[in-house]
């Protein structure tokens, strides 16, 4: 692995009496695509929320480029270059598409590069340009996912974390979203991808972690996980 961008060490997170994440460790290297797969309720979203700082861990370490971030506020973590595209898109429904994209750049201090980033996002997702004056809430599911990703890119993240970008989308749209993720990665963004759709995620990723009831059950190269019998049975729907 090249330089480590994100390191999670022995992370524990609970909601009241429920321990949702039970001591997981993972790492993402510069330029990698790493996926975290697991069934419903495994603790994937909780892990991402804790990295992003909207949920506090009970114990454990989270380091971004060597700097501990587990006690930083969410807006400070974004400013460091960690951006999350949340589960269910979470578009601001009463803001226009353009304003949603502006929200993505909210934490940025540099005024320059703004237009360039809009151009980049509009080049990746031309439909957002066509709809830029429309309220975000009027977009279709696929368009909203594109807007959520575009909004994430507006922060110029060093690490882009996506929580189930394929959720609720038709297969053709999922293919399209994944092509775009590949392109975003090619342009130089490190990606941590959370998915239930293990097949798509493992085909895209370099490495993968399998999360089961709050613990890491397996970790390996993505192609090895695709060939792993247990993974094939549990997550790829094969007998």
């Amino acid at each position, binding site marked *: 692995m090249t330089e480590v961008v994100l390191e999670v060490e022995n992370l524990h997170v609970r909601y009241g009496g429920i321990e949702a994440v039970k001591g997981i460790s993972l790492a993402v290297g510069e330029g990698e695509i790493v996926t975290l797969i697991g069934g419903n309720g495994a603790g994937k979203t909780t892990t991402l929320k804790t990295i992003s700082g909207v949920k506090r861990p009970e114990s454990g370490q989270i380091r971004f480029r060597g700097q501990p971030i587990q006690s930083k506020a969410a807006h400070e973590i974004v400013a460091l270059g960690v951006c999350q595209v*949340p589960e269910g898109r979470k578009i601001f429904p009463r*803001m226009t598409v353009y304003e949603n994209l502006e929200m993505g750049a*909210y934490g940025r201090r540099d005024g320059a590069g703004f237009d360039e980033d809009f151009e980049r996002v509009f080049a990746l997702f031309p439909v957002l340009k066509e709809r830029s004056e429309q309220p975000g809430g009027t977009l279709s599911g696929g368009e909203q996912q594109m807007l959520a990703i575009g909004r994430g890119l507006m922060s110029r993240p060093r690490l882009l974390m996506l929580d189930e970008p394929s959720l609720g989308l038709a297969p053709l749209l999922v293919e399209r979203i994944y092509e775009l993720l590949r392109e975003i990665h090619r342009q130089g963004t490190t990606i941590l991808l959370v998915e239930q759709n293990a097949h798509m995620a493992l085909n895209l990723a370099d490495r993968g972690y399998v999360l089961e009831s709050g613990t890491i059950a397996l970790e390996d190269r993505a192609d090895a996980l695709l060939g792993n019998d247990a993974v094939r049975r549990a997550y790829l729907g094969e007998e």
Partner: protein
Amino acid sequence: MRCANGLIDQFWAQTRNGITLGAIYAMIAIGYTMVYGVLQLINFAHSEVFMVATVVSLYAFRDWYGVTEPLTGGTLLLVLLITLIPAMIASGLTAVAIERLAYRPLRRRRAPRLSFLISAIGASLSIQYLFNLMDGNHSLLFIPLPNVLGAAPQEIPDVVSSKPLFSIFGTPWNGQQLLVIAVAVLMMIILDLLVRRTKLGRGIRAVAQDPETASLMGVSIDRIIVVTFLIGGAMAGAAGVLYSVRFHFTQWNIGFLPGIKAFTAAVLGGIGNIRGAMLGGLLLGMVEAYGVACTAPQWADVISFGVLVAVLMFRPTGILGERGVA
């Protein structure tokens, strides 16, 4: 028949009164609605934020600038400006202090809604009675309180003449009424632009629509909450100056009625909705004024609160609906 005759006789005069009063309600209502937008909380201590500005007006007009007779022209504008600025700052800071002391500790503890409501009422009464006791004769824990206001009403000198300037349909308008409307409209336009067109406004709207996602975009929620209290407080501060120009007195509990009517206005327009608060304020002022024409002045408060009850019963989301700050 009394009602119809009253309405016909007083229609234009009450239209004037309703717009003037409604403009003041609207400006106070903005603070209720903005705070509700970002925190889903009714800041009942907002009445006292307004009261503080009437006290600043009292000192500004009476003592600092020694106004003894109505002013005109450039002097008037200057005196108004250098009263509006400290009043808006004082009210804004009062609102921020209320947030810090009465709400933030509860937020940190994730307290239930009811705690916030009780804390709001507690903050409101504490501030009222603090001003009541600040007459130079009382101490708080052995610290003598300054003579700021006290229990008795204090007269505020007239800074704008009440002489009629012109008539519309036989109804005279004076400078006080015009000033209230002009300043209120100007402030509301500025606020509307701020919320809709600036980055800060986008931050406020984002927190109102989805606080967690807003924080994932790099918005500091605490900072937005402080700014929201500050802006809502400053608007109530401007309303306090206008109220002083129009009604010429203040008192420790002067905020209570305008405050609760502004709350009614915010509910009428759709709580959380800024343009709704503006519209609701204006409508409530008009309804109250026409209601008075139809009955008698002592019915004004009954009419306003009748509107509140009716809105809550028949259209709890208000005229424009609860749409968050946007």
